[in-house]
C-alpha cells in the first residue's frame, strides 16, 4: 500500500508574526519557516506504518514555491521514500491544494492519504476533507490513533465531547491531531541520505489544475490589543477586584 503525505511549509510555530503596516498581510521576510507541525505527525505516522509492514511506500508532497523543497527534504529525512513538489508561486488555497493532490492520487493510486488537520498559518482545517470529497473517499479527521487491517482503517478521532472511533473502508483520507504520535528527530545520517532520495517537480498546469484563488484577501489587521492588566498582591485583593471592579463573580 502506497501512502501519500502532503506537507506544507509554514512559519515556525514559535514565531509570533507581525502584521504589515500597509495591511496587505503578515511580514514573512527573514522569518523562520518549518514543516507544519501536524504534517510532521502525519509523516511520522506513515513511516511507522511502513516500519510495521502495512505501507510499502511513503510519498511526501508539497505545493508551493521552490523553497518547499526544504520541507520535503525534512520529510525524506524522517523516513519518506520520495517526494513530489508541485511548484507554484501562486497563493494556493485549500481547494486548489486538494485538486492538485487529487490529480496526483489519480496518477499514482495510493490507498491512504494522511494530512495534518490544520495548517498553522491559514488555520483553514479544510484540505483533507476537500480531498476526500473530490476522490469520493471516506475520511477520518483529527486522528489520535490509526489501526489498519483487512482493507479497513479504525481511526480514533478527537471530537468536542471526547473521542470516537470510526471504521473506514479504504481507500481513505486521515488527518492528524497532536496526540497521534511524537515525531522522531531526523538524525544526521538520515538527513544526508535524504539529499539523495528522488524529488520530482510538476507545475499545476502539468496536472491540469487551475489554482486561481477563490478568496481575495482585502486586508489583514492586528487584533485589538488587550488593555494591560495589573498584578494583585494576594488572594484577598484578587477576590475584591473580581467582585467589585470586574463584577464577574
Amino acid at each position, binding site marked *: 500500500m502506497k501512502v501519500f503525505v502532503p506537507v506544507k511549509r509554514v512559519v515556525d510555530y514559535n514565531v509570533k*508574526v507581525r502584521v504589515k503596516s500597509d495591511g496587505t498581510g*503578515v511580514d514573512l521576510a527573514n522569518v523562520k519557516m518549518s514543516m507544519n507541525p*501536524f504534517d510532521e505527525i502525519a509523516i511520522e505516522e506513515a513511516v511507522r506504518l511502513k516500519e510495521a509492514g502495512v505501507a510499502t511506500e511513503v510519498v511526501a508532497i508539497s505545493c508551493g514555491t521552490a523553497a518547499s523543497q526544504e520541507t520535503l527534504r525534512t520529510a525524506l529525512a524522517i523516513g519518506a521514500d520520495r517526494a513530489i513538489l508541485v511548484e507554484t508561486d501562486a497563493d494556493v488555497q485549500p*481547494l486548489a491544494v486538494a485538486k492538485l493532490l487529487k490529480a496526483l492520487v489519480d496518477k499514482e493510486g495510493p490507498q491512504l492519504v494522511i494530512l495534518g*488537520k490544520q495548517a*498553522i*498559518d*491559514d*488555520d*483553514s*482545517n*479544510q484540505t483533507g*476533507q*476537500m480531498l*476526500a*470529497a*473530490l476522490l469520493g473517499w*471516506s*475520511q477520518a*479527521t*483529527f486522528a489520535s490513533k490509526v489501526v489498519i487491517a483487512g482493507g479497513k482503517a479504525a481511526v480514533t*478521532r*478527537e*471530537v*468536542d*465531547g*471526547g*473521542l*470516537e*472511533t*470510526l*471504521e473506514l473502508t479504504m481507500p481513505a483520507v486521515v488527518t492528524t491531531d*497532536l*496526540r497521534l504520535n511524537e515525531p522522531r528527530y531526523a538524525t544526521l545520517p538520515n538527513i544526508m541520505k535524504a539529499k539523495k532520495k528522488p524529488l520530482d517537480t510538476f507545475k499545476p498546469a502539468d496536472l491540469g489544475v487551475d489554482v486561481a484563488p*477563490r*478568496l*481575495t*484577501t*482585502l*486586508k*489583514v*489587521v*492586528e*487584533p485589538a490589543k*488587550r*488593555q*494591560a*492588566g*495589573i*498584578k*494583585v498582591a*494576594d*488572594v*484577598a485583593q*484578587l*477576590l475584591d477586584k*473580581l467582585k467589585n471592579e*470586574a463584577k*464577574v*463573580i
Partner: protein
Amino acid sequence: MAVLVIAEHDNAALKAATRNTVTAAARLGGDIHVLVAGSGCTGAAQAAAQLAGVAVVKVADAAHYADQTAENLAALIVAQKAGYTHILAASTSQGKNTMPRVAALLDVAQISDIVAIEDADTFVRPIYAGNALATVRSGDAVKVVTVRTTAFDAAGQGGGAKIEAIAAAPDAGVAKLLGRELTKSARPELAAAKIVVSGGRGMGSGENYHKVLEPLADKLGAALGASRAAVDAGFVSNDYQVGQTGKIVAPQLYIAVGISGAIQHLAGMKDSKVIVAINKDPDAPIFQVADYGLVADLFQAVPELVTAL
C-alpha cells in the same frame, strides 16, 4: 434568497452552537432555514423551530444520520443546495469535519471560523493563531462558511418555524461508528461556559489537577479547561484543551492556573472578558494578557481562593 444553517444536535436536543450560527445567518439577510439530519431527531427539529428568526426547519430522519458522519451529511447538504446563497455551520469538530467536504463537492472555497460579517460576500477570520485578522471576499456562487460561536450571540427563543420532512440521501456506507468515549460531566459545556478554570503543566499531575481545580470550579459553577501540555501529560482528556488547535472560549471570566501563556493557548482564550492568571513565574507571558495576575504558588493560592469564596 435564503441561508441554510446546519444544526448540531444529539437528536433529542439542539447544541448551543447552532443558536450562535443562526445569529450569524441573520446578519446575512434573507430567510433562515435550518437543516436537522438525524435519527429520531424530532426533539432537535422542534427546538430548532423555536429559534427566533428561523423560517423553515428541514428534517432528514434516517438511521444513517445517527452517527453524523461527514460522508452522509455532506451528500445530504449538497442535495439540498438549491436556492441557498450561504450554507453555515458552527466551527465545532462536527462543522470542521463536514463543511469542507460540502464546499469541495460544490467546487467552492470554504470560509473557516469567521468572527465577523462585513457583507454577504465579505468575512473576517483569524489567521496565524489569531495574531492577525484577515478580511476575505469570496467570489463563489454559494458561500460555505463555518462560524466561530464565541463571536456571535446565541439566537433567542420565540420562533415558530415550519417543519418540513425531506428525503434522505443514499447511505455512502464507507464509515461506521465503532464507539464513543464522551466525557460525562455535570459542569457547563466548555465552549459556552460563563466561567472557565483552566490548568496547565504547573498542576504537576492529573490527581493534583482534579484535587486543586475542581473545588474552585464547583464554587464558581465553572467549566474546566486545560493547556495542551496538561492534556499531553495525561492530566485530563483531549476535550479539555483550549487553544489554536483545541477549543475557542470567550467566557466572562477565564482563570489560568499554572499555564505559561504560549501563543497557541492565548489563541483560544484571549477574547475572554476578564482573564486571571495564577503563576509562580512573574515573567510568564500569560501576565501580558491577564487583567489580574497573581504571582503565587498555585497549591497555596487556589485552596486559599476556594476558602475565601
